[in-house]
Structures are given as C-alpha cells and as structure tokens.
C-alpha cells in the first residue's frame, strides 16, 4: 500500500472555485456584450477583444516578471478587460483601450498585490484615468444603430442641457441610445445581474440599494419621469450589478453592502445633479471603494455567545 495522505480536516470541499465564479460573471456580461454589438456595430467586438486580450496578456507578463505564480487561469483579468471595454465608447482608439487595460491590470491590481488585494476596482479606476487623460475620445459618444458613427449626446448630457430631445423610455430600456458599449441596454444588464444573483455570486443588496437610492433622490429632485431616466441612463445599471458588487473592493457583510449601495447612490446623484460631469457612477464606486475597509470594520459580525 502506498503512503497515506495526512491532512487537517475538512477532507472534502465545495465545488465552487474562483475561476467558476469569474466564468459566471463573464456569462452574465455576455448579453450586454452582444447587445453592444447589435447597437453599435462590429467595432464593439473589436474594442472588447482588444481590452480582454491586453488585460490577460499584461496579467500574464506582469506575474512572469515579478516571478509570482501565474494565475491567469482564474479568469479575473478577462473579467476586468471585459468590464473596461463595456465602459468605453465604441469610437475609442484601440491603442487607448489597450493602454487602459494594461493600467487596470498592472497599476490598479498587480501593484497592490493582485487578485483580492486591490482596494479599488481596476476597470473603474482605469476608466477614470482614461476619462482624464483622453477626455476627447472618452466623451465622444456615437449614436446607436448608425454605421457611419455619427456622434450624439448621451441622455444624461441631454438631461443636463435641458430641452435637447431625449430617447423614449422604451429605447432607454432596450439601449437604443448614446453611451458606452455595455451601459446602454438595461434589459441585457438586468438579465446578467439576475443570473448572478440566482447563481449566488452576488447579493441583491448592493444593486437594489444603489439603484433604489438614485431613484428616490431623483424622484425628490425632478419627479417620476426624471427619476426613470436617471436610473436607465449612464452606467448606473452596469455599475450597480457588476462593479459595486466586486468582491475585492466592496464590503462583505450584508449591512456593509447596504451602506455601500446607499453611499454610491448619494454620491452618484450629487455628481449628476450638481457636478460638472454628467455622470458619477465611476467616481461614486471608487470613493466608496476607498472607505470599504472601514465599512467592513464597522459591520464585523458579533461572535455568537462571545463575552464582551
């Protein structure tokens, strides 16, 4: 008989794995990715391809260079690349998209210790970097269903400008409007988000609190129609389901998720109503990322039966 293996219990493990979770996130993002190709044409696929390729490649090379274990197989870089792509306008120069991916993986994730250790969401931080570095191309939005890439204003810009014509609410829901690749089609994002909740990957708490807060504040600020537009416009649905639920950078406890969601909602609304930028989703999530360690500390569970 061969030597018997000795190990500390438990001797069985659940089937859940990191790559399985990431694969579920990718599956959940597929409807939005497909919608972006239908709405903005084949160039969407190109942007997604470039972002994913550069994200995965830069993760692989970075881990090779700093001589740690190569963990590209966990698919997390793929998720980051995909998310970043969905946050970019379709007309973005490809070299800028590639640079954004490398920044997300190397600077935001890798330099802080890799998966699970980064305090800020890589895709969001990269998008903000690009917004500041390449303001022109990052805010040049293309009209939907236009093969010749005519430029258009986003609904949020239109809301701010007042008087500019807005797409109908139905078009808003289906995503027939100007905006980033993946943020426009609320329907596709909802399908993906519900899939993630159903699979137990994310909890409903953050998205519901986030979108709910924006809705209620907008209702108070501008009435029902305004509130519906606010919810469907910009990157709110994408951010609430896919970026405010990132494991590494958001709280782990249920009440922490509530604080995170409500906090994001308040900051987003404040920026949208009073700020000079039309959109505040990225900034709000990044700001809440920063205080996440404190939220986790405040909401640490009390041990059952523990003495004070």
């Amino acid at each position, binding site marked *: 008989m061969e030597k018997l293996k000795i190990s500390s219990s438990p001797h069985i493990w659940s089937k859940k794995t990191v790559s399985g979770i990431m694969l579920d996130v990718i599956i959940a993002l597929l409807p939005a990715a497909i919608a972006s190709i239908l709405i903005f044409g084949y160039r969407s696929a190109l942007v997604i391809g470039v972002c994913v390729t550069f994200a995965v490649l830069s993760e692989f090379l970075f881990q090779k260079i700093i001589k740690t274990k190569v963990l590209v197989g966990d698919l997390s870089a793929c998720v980051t690349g995909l998310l970043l792509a969905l946050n970019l306008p379709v007309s973005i120069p490809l070299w800028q998209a590639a640079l954004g991916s490398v920044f997300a993986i190397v600077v935001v994730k890798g330099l802080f210790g890799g998966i*699970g250790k980064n305090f800020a969401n890589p895709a969001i931080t990269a998008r903000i970097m690009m917004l500041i570095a390449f303001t022109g191309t990052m805010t040049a939005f293309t009209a939907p269903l236009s093969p010749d890439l005519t430029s258009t204003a986003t609904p949020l810009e239109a809301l701010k400008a007042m008087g500019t014509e807005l797409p109908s609410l139905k078009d808003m829901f289906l995503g027939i409007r100007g905006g980033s690749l993946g943020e426009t089609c609320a329907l596709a994002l909802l399908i993906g988000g519900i899939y993630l909740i159903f699979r137990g990957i994310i909890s409903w708490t953050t998205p519901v609190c986030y979108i709910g807060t924006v809705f209620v504040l907008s209702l108070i600020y501008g009435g029902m129609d305004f509130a519906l537009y606010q919810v469907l416009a910009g990157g709110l649905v994408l951010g609430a389901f896919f970026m405010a639920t990132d494991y590494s950078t958001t709280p782990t*406890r249920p009440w922490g998720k509530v604080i995170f969601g409500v906090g994001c909602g308040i900051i987003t609304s404040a920026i949208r109503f009073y700020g000079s930028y039309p959109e505040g989703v990225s900034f709000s999530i990044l700001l809440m990322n920063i205080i996440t360690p404190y939220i986790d500390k405040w909401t640490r569970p009390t041990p059952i039966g523990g003495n004070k």
Partner: protein
Amino acid sequence: MAFLRMPGVKVPHRKHTSNKFPARITPPEEVCLLLSMHIGAPAVPAVKIGDTVKIGQLIAKEGGYVSAPVHASVSGTVKRIDDITTAANQLTKGIVIQSDGLMERYELIEPPKVTDRESFIQAVKNSGVVGLGGAAFPTAVKLNVKEGVTVEEIVINGAECEPYITADTRTFLDRSDDLLYGIELLLKYIQPKKIIIGIENNKKEAIQKAKKLFENKKEVFVQTLPSVYPQGGEKVLIYSTTQKIVPEGKLPLDVGVIVLNATTVAAIAEFVKTGMPLTEKCITVDGSAVNSPANLIVPIGTRIKDVFAAAGGFKTDPAKIIMGGPMMGHSMPDTEYPVMKGTNALLAFDKKEAEIPEETPCINCGSCIQRCPLHLDPPAFGKAHMLKDTKALEKLKVNLCMECGVCAYVCPAKRHLVQRNRLAKNMLKEHNEKKKKEEAEKNGKA
C-alpha cells in the same frame, strides 16, 4: 433573538449506508484498547500481561473524576501494553488482547441495581459510556448535575450532519427499544422538563420511527431539523432546538441543557438492562476506495485494517483514511490504529478524492464569514496569526471556533481557513497559559 441565523452550509449527504443493516464482524485476532479514548484522565490498567479476560470484564479503571473505565471487548489473553500516539497526537497506552476466538462473556456480568439518581449515575459511570457522537466526553460526568441546578431540556442528538455517517440513523431504526428505555431512565432519574430529539430532515425513516416511538410521551418531542452542516454541533443543536445560546466559556448545563448522542442513550439503556458495558460500536465504513460500504458492529479496539477487511477490502489502493466524518475526522497515518469508543465512521478515499486542491489568494468573497455558524471572521484569524497578534485573536474570539470546517469547505480559493484557525487557537491558548504562569511566578516572588 429568534432572527439570529446559525447559517452553516449544505454538504453532500452521501448517506449510502442508511439502509445497510449493521452486521457483526468476525472477531479479529487481536484488539488494542486505548486507555485514553475519552476526554479527561486516561484509565488505569487493572490487568497484567498474561491475564485471561472475557468480554465485558474491566481491564482499566477510571483515572480520575473526568475519566471512564475500559472493558475487554474480546475474550482472550492480555498480550502487551503498547505505547500509542493518538490521532490527536497525544501519547497514550493501549492494552492488546489476543483473542481466543470464543467471544465468551464475562460470567460476573449482571444488571446493575438502579433505584435512584445516584445509583443511575454510578451505573452510567461503570458502563464506560462516553459521548459516542465523536467527542467522547464521559457521560456520567455530564449527567452528574449539582444539587440545585435544574435540567430544563435534555437534547438527544440525532442530527448526524457529517456526510457518509449513518451509525446514529441505524440506532433509531434498529435499537429503538434501547432508545426508548434510555429516555425513560433519563426522565425518571435526571428529571428534565423536556427531552427534545433533534434529527435532520434527510433521515425520514428515523424521524418516523422516533415520532411513533414517543407518541405517548408528553415530555418527549421529536424535532425535524434542516439538513445543514454543522447541525449536530453542540452549540448549534442547542440553538436549533431550544433557541438558547451557550455563552463563551460556559457549558450547556449553565443554560439548563444537556446534550446526549442518540447512540449514547441506547448504550446506557443496554447497560442498565443487561449489565454489559460498552464493548462494541456500530460504525459506518464508506468512501470511494471501499469495496462494499456498510455499517459494521465491531469490538472496540479492532484495528482499522480488520474493519476494512470486513467491508470487503479496498477497490483501489486507499490514498487517505479518515476516522470520523470528512468534515471533522482525522486522517490516519496507518491502518494499525484501533477503533475507539467515539469512532462512528471509517472512510477510505481513493487517489482522486484524497487530492487536496491548490490554495489560491483570497478574493474577499465573504463566503466564510457569511457561513460561519458562530459568526466569526476566519480570514482575520489567519492574518492575526501570521502577525502573532494575540491581542487581536482574543478580540476576534478565535477561542469560540469549534473547528467545524465550514469556512474551509465553502472557500472558492480553497484556502486552509479552519486549519489556520486551529493554529491561531493554539497560539492564543499557549500565550494565555504563559501569561498566567508568569503572573503566578511574579506573585510567588512578591
């Protein structure tokens, strides 16, 4: 407090043997009875090498108040007294008895005279019965309630939440007379206000049987529990059945509860009825490397290899052998180790099942914190342990961890969480002991 959750996790049941009627194995050629197969002081040998013994004869007396006597499980000759390292890495002695193959009962065995509470507890003491669910705490000590303390509930643990194990289920199905008698004894002599029998809902037959059995007893309640690991953990079971929380550093009795395993109750009943002490145990033999999974009644002290041989041997070379369940059992270094009183399962895993998944970085998903039945924070323990921060460990209550393994089970990154909790727990314990000693020395000098 009713909204409080003790979450736990759904583990695969793998109760392949719940329909397997326990078979008595052919007695082994020799058995090795450990002197320390219970919590507390080791038993003290009462026989010499060369003595002939028969089944049920006392071979080691209890070595203190928290201790239990050991009885011969086969008839034969005392061959040696060996030094043995236990699964928990403690050194103990084992009395090796060479069987004469006759399996003769000790002729002086007669039912004890049980007339009152004291004689009942004495009987439990003499029976050598310890917690048979695995913890092996001497049952007589548990039942020996101080005067003035009322026992409100006795909870009978039939949860059997570990995968594979069906030994307790078989107790409900096959030893219902003993169980009934045991519960009558408890009602008569310990006088709790209620007895609650907790069984997980994946054991339909056992629940039916128990419900029927106790139909006419108004103090006995059969409670169906959700099949969520670790439902059978003492604190979890107490909460599930009585909604009481056992505070840190306290015993169940401090909240008026005694928890007894179902098989323990049956073993007490058998002793009071017949006078035969605990000498055999029904154990579940299962796992991917076992030829025919079964429930087997084996003499205590039977070596692991003999038990597996009785279950038809191995299909393939076993890569890991586990004494107990897969969630909390110990992996054994060889097959010479003997079955103890608290052993309820022996599992043999093939190479594939024994593989330990690779540990990858924590992704901060929070599954472990969410699932911990006691609402602890396992990753924080690991960090504090790495930094040797005993103050943080104290504050995080690592000492409450019951090592159920839920955190490590659910972790998608396959991190060794409960394993680190154990290290952290030990570190805190050692630190506190050292501090105590230093303080004592200081006071001694002053």
